[in-house]
């Protein structure tokens, strides 16, 4: 227990002293040593350990009464223990105070530990930046670095600000931000994100964002502010806590007075009322419920998932419909040659080579994907007279042959007999010297793990998966079928997506929630409209982080089932705590009223339950990846 604060150490010392003293007195009491003494002597003797252990509570109680706070737990403890003294149960009074303090200490220790393990997750703040001024390297606070400055990052150092590499090559460990354990290669021209750790090489980089706008600052703010967006359960607990203490206290008062007036047994009924007072603090709930959510949010951020509030975690746990944007979410958002269909008399290799050569001067994404598929160095000497017909295709002289490459229209315009192909993706047709060579199908590849993520979602209770896209129907049908989606809508304009999400929201049951998953580009209104807006692959994208409720730092769809698991676990633990804490308190209240529960049990129902609930809440922190 080396990490106790000064205040906690003091309390611990007082507890030990009191415990020894109390044990001695307890033995004396039970062996009859006090029997010959007058009645008041016992009170005086027990008052010594009582004051040692409880003086701060007594002082606080009086201070708070002066400030007009009647239903303060210190005051209630004071009333309960003084009442116990008055009815001659001196050892109980001391014991209650002692165990109350033990519980409080344990509680404060547990909360501190939980707090630390959560803030440890967020130890992504860089402490300094090495800035290069006129060739000299100076270590400064990241705050002071300006956009455009050149920073030097050595191996093992944390990247202090968002920047672009200008010199050097390295592997970057993004685990703290994305939960991804495989380091990412980065070289000149690549963007690097603050909070990641530079792995192997020293790099120089030009700062692109000031510290207050950098990724690391925004993430921290987001997680810190997450506590202010409370889940329904949390709000319920806050409201409940406000009425619980007064109700229990008034019940105690009634219990002390009414039966006593009837039966005349004041001592008995006051003792019962005291047990009520000891249980009157709602701390177990007030601490453990927000702690549970906080832990869940912490566990999520360790997996590279930022959750903007407990309310969203609550909503995620009842998601039944997940709507996906297609490009960049389910698919990679990059074009790739998917199929090569040569005519007879031409091989695949020949077709691809001809196409790659003809496209060698073009920057069009399709041209790039063709060259990538070809994969060999291209000798531009073989190509001449290259030209482009916008929207149709290209033409060039390749090895002396007139090559045409483009859409069906281009072929027909040139009188080439090409067969139109009906399939997913973009089709380009090739011809050389008027002879049709064949077609190449280029499409946006489905992301690795998409299908698995969808299966996993279904397994965790999602009933309906829907895809929205602006692409052609044929393409949408193919992707949807391959992924096993329940439904899809194609050829949509960005504005149509909101309408469809609204329609799907209408089809959801009262307790069902709908999530929209997008990359944050063009779909901010949809992210905002859905019950839960999930943006992904958006490290460094302001718009997405603004609009979404949950941000997945990398572009791994598999994180969606992960966050659903975390949410479900968090909600289960929170509910367990509520049922357990309220159940035990209620049971002890009833037993207390019937005279079956003593002060000891009451102390357990108060601090014991709080500690158990806190320990249970801390389980939310340990989420499986």
């Amino acid at each position, binding site marked *: 227990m080396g990490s106790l604060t000064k*205040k906690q150490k003091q309390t611990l010392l007082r507890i030990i002293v009191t415990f020894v003293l109390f044990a001695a007195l307890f033995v004396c009491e039970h062996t009859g040593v006090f029997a010959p003494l007058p009645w008041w002597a016992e009170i005086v003797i027990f008052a010594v350990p009582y004051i040692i252990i409880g003086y701060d509570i007594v002082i606080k109680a009086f201070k*708070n009464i002066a400030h007009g706070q009647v239903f303060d737990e210190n005051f209630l403890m004071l009333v309960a223990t003084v009442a116990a003294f008055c009815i001659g149960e001196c050892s109980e009074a001391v014991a209650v105070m002692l165990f109350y303090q033990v519980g409080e200490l344990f509680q404060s220790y547990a909360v501190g530990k939980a707090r630390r393990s959560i803030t440890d997750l967020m130890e992504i703040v860089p402490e300094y930046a090495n800035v290069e001024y006129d060739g000299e390297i100076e270590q400064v606070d990241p705050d002071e670095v300006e956009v455009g400055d050149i920073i030097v990052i050595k191996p093992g150092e944390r990247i202090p600000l968002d920047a672009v590499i200008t010199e050097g090559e390295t592997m970057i460990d993004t685990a703290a931000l994305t939960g991804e354990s495989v380091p990412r290669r980065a070289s000149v021209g690549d963007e690097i994100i603050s909070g990641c750790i530079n792995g192997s090489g020293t790099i120089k980089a030009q700062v692109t964002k000031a510290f207050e706008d950098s990724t690391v600052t925004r993430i921290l703010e987001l997680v*810190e502010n997450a*506590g*202010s967006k409370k889940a329904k359960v949390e709000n319920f607990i806050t409201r409940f806590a406000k009425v619980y203490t007064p109700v229990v206290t008034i019940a105690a008062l009634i219990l002390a007075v009414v039966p006593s007036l009837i039966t005349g047994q004041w001592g008995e009924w006051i003792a019962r009322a005291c047990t009520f007072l000891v249980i009157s603090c709602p701390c177990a709930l007030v601490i453990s419920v927000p702690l549970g959510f906080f832990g869940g949010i912490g566990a999520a951020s360790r997996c590279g998932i930022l959750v903007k509030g407990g309310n969203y975690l609550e909503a995620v746990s009842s998601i039944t419909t997940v709507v996906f944007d297609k490009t960049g979410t389910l698919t990679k958002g990059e074009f790739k040659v998917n199929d090569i269909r040569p005519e007879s008399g031409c091989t695949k290799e020949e077709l691809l080579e001809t196409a790659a050569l003809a496209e060698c001067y073009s920057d069009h994404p399709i041209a790039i994907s063709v060259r990538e598929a070809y994969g060999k160095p291209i000798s531009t000497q073989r190509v001449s007279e290259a030209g482009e017909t916008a929207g149709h295709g290209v033409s060039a002289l390749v090895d002396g042959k007139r090559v045409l490459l483009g859409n069906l229209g281009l072929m027909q315009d040139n009188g080439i007999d090409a067969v139109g192909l009906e399939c997913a993706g973009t089709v380009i047709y090739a011809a050389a010297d008027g002879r049709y060579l064949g077609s190449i199908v280029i499409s946006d590849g489905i992301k690795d793990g998409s299908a698995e993520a969808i299966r996993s979602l279904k397994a965790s209770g999602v009933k309906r998966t829907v895809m929205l896209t602006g692409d052609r129907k044929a393409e949408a049908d193919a992707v949807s079928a391959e992924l096993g989606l329940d439904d899809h809508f194609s050829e949509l304009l960005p504005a149509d997506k909101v309408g469809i999400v609204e329609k799907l929201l209408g089809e959801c049951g009262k307790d069902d929630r709908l999530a929209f998953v997008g990359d944050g580009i063009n779909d901010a209104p949809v992210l905002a409209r859905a019950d839960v807006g999930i943006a992904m692959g958006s490290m460094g994208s302001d718009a997405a982080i603004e609009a979404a409720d949950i941000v997945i730092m990398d572009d791994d769809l598999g994180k969606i089932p992960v966050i659903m698991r975390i949410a479900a676990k968090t909600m289960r633990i929170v509910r367990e705590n509520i049922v357990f804490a309220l159940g035990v308190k209620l049971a002890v209240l009833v037993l207390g009223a019937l005279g079956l529960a003593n002060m000891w049990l009451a102390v357990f129902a108060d601090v014991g339950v709080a500690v158990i609930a806190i320990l249970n809440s801390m389980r939310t922190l340990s989420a499986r990846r």
Partner: protein
Amino acid sequence: MKKKFKLQDLDCANCAQKMEDAIKKIEGVSDATVNFMMQKMTIDADDDKFDDIMKQVVDTCRKVEPDCVILM
């Protein structure tokens, strides 16, 4: 103006809630949050009276939870 403060020895979640409610009632404070987990307090109040308001905030906190110290 929005400002953040660290809190020390904020041990009781119920008190954090009470502090937040009490601070919100101070004149000139447009919003306040007491974050029990992060042990942080955010106060959004009028610029020109900020120092005065902070004095009241400190007083209020002392009344609600004498142990808790606002680090300024």
